[in-house]
């Protein structure tokens, strides 16, 4: 299958401005159009390794970014996101266009992918087994994922744990990872080889910079894997590293609460969460030092692999 990079940056920009860019993001086929020139180069950098799709297909979603003006402050340049031709939220500052597109893709997945149990969770894989990081924003799951994928883990997602309800299989949807605020420099120091997009200041989440997904994770994004560990992370400034096994009941409660669509799935959601927490080892991780946490998680994976 062709990859986006084969278009070259000029061809990529031409697609965005014209017919639209068809790209495969895990289980979703996405068409993107954009009239915002400033995002073309960073978007190409982040997306050059993704499978390029032709137009002869049904896309899961059509997203478009268009230039707009704030009303009545017409001097303020804004960007409008259209999903299948409709704006799902208000226009946002144009300088945030790249983040708006990424948030938009997340929004559409969260609103539509109800054939899957959708956990609000990071997910990485090593040795054929998936480690989930279910957590609310600010818990450090994106930072953990960004660090681990630069230490030999495969990225499934920093945002979605997409579980087939009748299995414990997770579907990869590796997408650029939006680091926030201090995490940007933390990852720059931890993994100097990481490719980051531009810093986008003053968003609703502070300053954001997206980490490019390693090409190997994108190339393997058709391959699902089973969950082996569920780790609920919590970054706490100054905290000593702590990783405690959780009771299955606590893990069930936290996982069900964390899912985007647990109640919508009804009994299938109940069965899916039960299957996950009984099959996986469940832990609560508190950390402040990223390198320590990564070391511990690497050891956990290595010990399990040697014990299996």
């Amino acid at each position, binding site marked *: 299958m062709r990859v986006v990079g084969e278009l070259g940056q000029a061809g990529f920009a031409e697609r965005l401005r014209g017919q639209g860019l068809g790209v495969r993001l895990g289980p979703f086929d996405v068409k993107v159009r954009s009239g915002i020139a400033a995002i073309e180069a960073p978007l190409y950098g982040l997306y050059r390794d993704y499978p390029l799709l032709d137009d002869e297909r049904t896309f899961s979603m059509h997203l478009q970014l268009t230039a707009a003006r704030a009303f009545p402050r017409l001097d303020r340049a804004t960007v409008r996101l259209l999903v299948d031709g409709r704006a799902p939220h208000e226009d946002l500052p144009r300088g945030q266009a790249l983040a708006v597109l990424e948030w938009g893709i997340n929004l559409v997945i969260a609103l539509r992918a109800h054939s899957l149990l959708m956990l609000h969770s990071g997910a990485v894989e090593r040795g054929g087994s998936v480690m989930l990081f279910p957590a609310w924003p600010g818990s450090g799951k994106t930072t953990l994922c960004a660090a681990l994928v630069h230490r030999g883990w495969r990225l499934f997602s920093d945002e979605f744990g997409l579980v087939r309800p009748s299995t414990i299989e997770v579907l990869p949807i590796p997408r650029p990872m939006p680091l926030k605020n201090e995490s940007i420099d933390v990852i720059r120091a931890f993994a100097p080889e990481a490719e980051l997009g531009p810093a986008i200041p003053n968003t609703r989440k502070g300053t954001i910079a997206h980490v490019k997904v390693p090409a190997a994770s994108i190339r393997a994004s058709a391959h699902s894997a089973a969950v082996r560990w569920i780790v609920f992370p919590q970054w706490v400034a100054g905290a000593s590293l702590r990783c405690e096994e959780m*009771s299955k*009941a606590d893990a069930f409660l936290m996982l069900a609460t964390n899912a985007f669509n647990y109640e919508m799935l009804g009994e299938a959601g109940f069965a899916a969460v*039960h299957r996950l927490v009984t099959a996986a080892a469940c832990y609560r991780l508190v950390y402040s030092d990223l390198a320590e946490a990564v070391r511990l998680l690497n050891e956990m994976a290595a010990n399990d692999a040697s014990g299996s």
Partner: protein
Amino acid sequence: MSDATAGVTTHWRARPAHEFVSSQLGADYAVYHRPSGRTHFLNAAAADLLERVLLQPRTAAAAAAELAAGEGAPGSAEFVAVVAESLSRLEYLGLIERCEP
């Protein structure tokens, strides 16, 4: 949840088994209630009420006596009061109902 209308002669029974799915998670139980689509967490005693003791109509005192016997422990007025409280809670969740003796 206490209920002043639940007197000592009130009988209770579990809702039909097809209305819920129960799964043991260590010492606790997760129960999916099909009519409401809600998930509830029960301790072992509440699960025992639902899955064994209240398959037949029971008063709070009779249910408490069966639970206590299952544990090999003597019942007490205090224990009956705790069980009565649990019965009201299970009724509120839609897992049990009042019935004729």
